């Protein structure tokens, strides 16, 4: 599609429109990806429990991608929103405030989003370093609150006695996780569609501009504050829904949902698949969860060591030119997302966060 006829102004206008709509169009690979995902409902029925976990990781990583990949904000405390959503869903179900899971999930998302909105103003300011401190500090603070408020949250024992009602009043959660998986995957798909639309909009484009060159962005009239608040709030709502899903599908939540490990693992999941694609987190979640499964069978303890080693290696080798089995995956993510088909050659990984 390179170099279309632009000799007349009508042809030029349609070439411009075509360039924009190419972003919005679904590529065949993208459709294959989702068909593949939904086919697991019938093809891998005995794997639904682990697949549900993967979906939840994918949603959390997708949420992180919205702020890291599209706004360049590094967060060490994304679990805060995940946990807020998890406990919201748990309390709603336990006290039968909102019995229907889909509605309760929406409320969890709202809770996560509201908390994200409130804390976004702290994250807007300052450098990467202050953002690290604030995100980490906020997550620790929430965890501490959940720990202290044992009368409400069950403290260190976790929130028990959650009895889930059927989804939409029709589909009961079963022991094999079939309902849970179909439910989670559908939620992921819907939220993915929403995110895809948002990052492809003028708003999404302006976020990329802010991330790419904040100085120039403001020089063409793009105000940063409310855009960053907006995407941070949306990402927090997504994380809240992911947390809500975890609670609803396991009928349990604990302080683990707020832990630093969860924040760090979410970062890892996203990095595996690559940032700024939307698909990165989804692919990363599959790799992460199966690697976790495999490693914990091989060496039951010290999973953390391998995660650490992996993080160190990923950086030393270089995220953008990581060898072996990651390059094809990353290219896949790139191709699936259909991100600018006219771009020459494989896309160079943009530099997230750090100053040039």
């Amino acid at each position, binding site marked *: 599609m390179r170099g279309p006829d632009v000799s007349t102004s009508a042809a030029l206008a349609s070439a411009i429109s075509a360039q924009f709509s190419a972003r919005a169009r679904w590529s065949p690979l993208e459709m294959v990806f989702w068909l593949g995902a939904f086919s697991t409902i019938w093809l891998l029925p005995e794997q639904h429990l682990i697949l549900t976990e993967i979906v939840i990781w994918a949603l959390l990583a997708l949420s992180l991608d919205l702020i890291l990949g599209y706004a360049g904000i590094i967060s060490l405390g994304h679990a805060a929103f995940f946990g807020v959503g998890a406990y919201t869903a748990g309390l709603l179900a336990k006290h039968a405030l909102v019995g229907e899971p889909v509605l309760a999930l929406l409320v969890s998302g709202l809770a996560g989003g509201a908390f994200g909105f409130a804390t976004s103003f*702290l994250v807007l300011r300052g450098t990467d370093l202050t953002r690290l401190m604030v995100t980490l500090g906020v997550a*620790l603070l929430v965890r501490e609150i959940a720990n202290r408020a044992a009368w409400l949250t069950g403290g260190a024992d976790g929130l028990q006695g959650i009895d889930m009602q059927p989804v939409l009043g029709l589909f009961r959660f079963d022991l094999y996780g079939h309902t849970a998986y179909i439910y989670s995957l559908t939620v992921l798909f819907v939220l993915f569609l929403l995110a895809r639309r948002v990052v492809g909009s003028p708003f999404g484009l302006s976020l990329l501009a802010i991330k790419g060159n904040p100085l120039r962005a403001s020089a063409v009239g793009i105000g940063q504050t409310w855009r960053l608040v907006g995407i941070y709030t949306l990402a927090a709502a997504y994380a809240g829904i992911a947390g809500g899903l975890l609670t609803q599908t396991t009928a349990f939540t604990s302080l683990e949902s707020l832990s630093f490990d969860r924040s760090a693992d979410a970062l890892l999941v996203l990095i595996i698949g690559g940032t700024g694609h939307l698909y990165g987190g989804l692919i990363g979640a599959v790799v992460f969860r199966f690697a976790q499964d495999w490693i914990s069978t091989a060496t039951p303890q010290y999973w953390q060591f391998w*995660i650490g080693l992996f*993080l160190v290696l990923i*950086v030393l080798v270089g995220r953008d030119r990581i060898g072996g089995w990651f390059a094809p995956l990353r290219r896949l993510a790139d191709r699936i997302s259909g991100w600018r088909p006219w771009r020459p050659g494989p896309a160079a990984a943009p530099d997230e966060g*750090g100053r040039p």
Partner: protein
Amino acid sequence: MVTILFDGIAYGMLLFVLAAGLSVTLGLMNFVNLAHGAFAMAGGYAALVVVNRLGVPFALGLVCAFLFSAALGALLERTLYVHVYAKSHLDQVLFTIGLVFMSVAIVDYTMGSSQQFIAIPPSLQGQVTVFGLGMSKYRLMIIVICGILTLLLQLGLTRTRFGSRLRAAVDDQRVARGLGINVGAVFAFTFALGSGLAGLGGALGAEILGLDPIFPLKYMIYFLIVVTVGGTSSITGPFLASLLLGIGDVAGKYYVPQFGAFVIYTIMIVVLIWRPQGLFVRKGAR
């Protein structure tokens, strides 16, 4: 009241010795080293091994802690960190979190997961009365040692040739290179020194902060607060920030025990709203 102030100062000075290296690393290379606490933990365990198992005197154990962490710091700096300086902050964060996780798992595997204490000689236990006030001997020792170290650091930075080179490099690396300063070597040495101090702090603080494998995670936020609140343009900023944090934390845990842990987060948020660039940052500095 005075006791709380005293404990808070001891705690704060300890934090300063622990975090001083990190603030220089940040100022010098703009490098976010979240694994700084791992060096402190390494020092703590080094002292634990030589004092508790080999029966080395406590003071010598502290020296061992310093040397062990400094050597570890120098080794890792030359072999691993040096490849990550030029990378983005995201890469630095991932890399150093990776190191933290590895250190946690390694220590857990070799030393066990429970909290341990370094045997303190009887001469340092109990209280001593100064000006009619009962004070913990151990905390008094911390204040004395950390105070001396702070003075030495300050003198070293302002009075020695190395100090002026370091300050030049922190101010402007390119200019420093142009003046013939070997910034890489300055940095390696500083990194080792900072790691050594952290190790010493880890050994000294085992009694107060505890020593277990999740030490680097537990205190990561404290170190981050010290450097963001204190800034990186001098050591005075981090020093004052450490004292503020130490006194705030101790006082909070004493006066409002149910909200004790929240005090430091409140400090953090208030400072951030009030002075987003840090409390003690020079005007015009970055």
